[in-house]
């Protein structure tokens, strides 16, 4: 699965240099994800680094500045540049609140360098965490919740 993601990203990253991007208004439904853990694979399989299993780590990563993504229902990943009034791609109050949530986003899509960048003007609906996978994977990674006994 991870190699499939890498291959898909590599294929996307091929087209030539983009210039002043022309935006397209889109509505996308999907999960707000932690792009580092999703693409690097260091914390687990793509299925494990989303949803309730990865919620705590997603908060840490977003707070640390790692860009968040929107994983659409068709598997497309949109790199989120901005959400509503938050002037940053990670760590803002809105993005922390939405970590691992499934949302319907209305915004502008900018395709550049084979990547999809999304400027979200409106979170039309916030469905909370709908991917309840912690029963399958536990907390991923386990150390994202500090051991109170240490």
């Amino acid at each position, binding site marked *: 699965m991870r190699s499939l993601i890498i291959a898909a990203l590599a294929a996307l990253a091929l087209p030539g240099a*983009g*210039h002043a991007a022309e935006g397209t208004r889109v509505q996308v439904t999907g999960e707000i994800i932690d792009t*580092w853990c999703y693409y690097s694979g260091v914390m687990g399989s793509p299925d494990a680094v989303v949803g309730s299993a990865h919620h705590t780590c997603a908060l840490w990563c977003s707070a640390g*500045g790692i860009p968040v993504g929107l994983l659409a229902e068709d598997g497309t990943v949109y790199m989120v*540049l*901005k959400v509503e009034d938050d002037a940053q791609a990670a760590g803002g109050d809105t993005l922390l609140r939405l970590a691992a949530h499934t949302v319907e986003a209305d915004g502008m899509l900018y395709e*550049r360098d084979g990547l999809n960048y999304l400027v979200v003007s409106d979170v039309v609906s916030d469905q909370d965490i709908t991917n309840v996978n912690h029963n399958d994977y536990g907390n991923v990674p386990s150390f994202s919740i500090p051991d109170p006994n240490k």
Partner: protein
Amino acid sequence: MRRLMALLCLAAMPAAAQSPFPVAIGGPYSLTDQFGQTRTQADPDGRAQLVFFGYANCLNICSAALPLMAQVVDDLAADGIAVTPVMITVAPDQDTVETMGAPLAEIHPDFIGLTGDTQALQVAYDAFSVEVEPLFQDPEYGWIYSHGSFLHLLDGDGDTLTLLPPVLDVTQAAQIARSYLTPQS
């Protein structure tokens, strides 16, 4: 008259106009490098630049982004494309002219670290839409900061060419950068 001056100032601001996105990504700044020299958004040797906002002892995204920058620089250098890796500090209390050079040199010998006073740094943060927020104080490493983490590819004049998400691997990031740059003869 004041309104006219304000309009003229706005007209002279290149940040938003040069951004490849509808978000301010790039613009003028004037900071100080680890050698005590003033450095602006323009590379003194006209080389392309990879610019990242972080801090030298950051254990979070910087520990991935800074080595990625170094590897991309080396990958491009093999094709005759010279790119300078630049880190603009978000922690001027920790990254000073005296201290930031050594840890950056361990990552890449060409790394330039930039710091400055609060006002000068804020100009750079605003130009690149980078928000910096202290999160908590680690007893061993000092303050831990939240900060933006995209890599910015700039040309020799300091104009933004594109963004590179720090989650790309070296091959992908270098491939995108290569599409904007040409080898030097």
